[in-house]
């Protein structure tokens, strides 16, 4: 066999190693209109309200045919309340659908007030603290209909580490996920 065929073999092997899964995100639900209003509940501390809007805007600007917009009277609420002091949930997104469809009817995005001493809006996020904007961005990702990603650096990866702010900005996998649902 010649050098050329050896190189072809090496190239093909490299290509084989580089084959990635088509996607690491997971899609679950969708909003039929492609735009969703949300209302910030009065329970949300004033200092966190800009984080809510920033989180929503991250997904609005992800390149998909989808928009979040702030509203004063939406049934989709962003709330701040006690989950229970023993509970290690930082936040959650609760989505309502009628069985037999994946079309979302309502959602709540919540931040756990029991972590009040551990929340941070600073950059960088102090060690041992959790970034409010990162958690909201993750939860708003569930709000568009995404599940968790297997990419550890993605905003939609299931675990949230203290002292980090990287989930504030969407990775390509996150963007691919919302585009997969709503198109461009």
């Amino acid at each position, binding site marked *: *066999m010649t050098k050329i*065929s*050896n190189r*072809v*073999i090496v*190239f*093909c*092997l490299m*290509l*084989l190693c580089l*084959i990635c899964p*088509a*996607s690491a995100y*997971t*899609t*679950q*639900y*969708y*909003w*039929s209109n492609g735009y969703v209003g949300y209302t910030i509940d009065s329970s949300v501390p004033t200092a966190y309200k800009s984080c809510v809007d920033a989180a929503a805007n991250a997904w609005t600007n992800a390149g998909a045919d989808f928009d979040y917009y702030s509203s004063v009277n939406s*049934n989709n*609420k962003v709330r701040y*309340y*006690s*989950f*229970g*002091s*023993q*509970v*290690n*949930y*930082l*936040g*959650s*997104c*609760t*989505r*309502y*659908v*009628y*069985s*037999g469809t*994946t*079309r979302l009817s*309502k959602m709540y995005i919540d931040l756990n007030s029991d*972590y009040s001493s551990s929340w941070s809006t600073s950059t960088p996020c102090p060690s041992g603290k959790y970034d409010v904007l990162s958690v909201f961005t993750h*939860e708003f990702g569930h709000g568009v209909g995404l*599940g*968790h990603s297997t990419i550890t650096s993605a905003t939609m990866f*299931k*675990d*949230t*580490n*203290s002292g980090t702010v990287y989930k504030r900005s969407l990775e390509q996998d996150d963007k691919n996920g919302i*585009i*997969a*649902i*709503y*198109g*461009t």
Partner: protein
Amino acid sequence: MVNRTTKYGLLSVGLLSVLIVGIVLFGNLTQHLQNNSPEENLQQSALPVSSDHLTQDAQGNSTEVDSPQILISSSGSLAYLNFTELNQRSESIVIGTVKEILPAKWNTHDGKRRGDTIENLGEYDAMYTDVIISVDQYLKNPLEQKEIRVRIQGGEDEVVKMAFDSEPSFKEGEKVLLYVSKDVSTRFKDFGPEHYLVIGASLGKFTLTDDGLAVREYEYVDQKELLDAIEKGYEPEIKSFKEVKE
């Protein structure tokens, strides 16, 4: 030195790879160019959370059931708790067997659902499922009870299925190790008999297998090492695997 057969074999694999990559890329490109509705896009891509999945999370059993009319899916961001933190945050650590999974209830005064439509459900209404654990051993702070009631968020009735993706699941007859504390949450503490929560959600529940492992979602620890770590207060070695051994 690689012989000709091997080389041709590798070349074939490589060419097949190129073909597969091409098909995948072409498929993705075609999908994005199509003017599909989000629903069509969802049908072409990953699957939505199925009702079977929700049933398993709440009950731990994979039984075929008539689908309720409303699905409520809650996805949470968890703060990761290591073993030291699980130990610190838990009132007690128990080894026991799942004796019974009780019918799900709502956090209302009568335990029942308020309405039959999404619009009529209360804003903070939630379902819970109580699991009775027959205690074999207490590893920390022995309680008087030989059985404890552990509450998990989520459940199912005739109309609604509610699932929390970070909650642990249980099966009757399962041997488990649990980090627990008495429930003080405003959402559930005042409803039903005295009960406990699993600290750390799915992080605080291990299935103890016959081959000596302590298994939780996608991770396992050697049982003896875990028990030793709990007693002596160190972090055991956690290993990951894709499929949970049972």
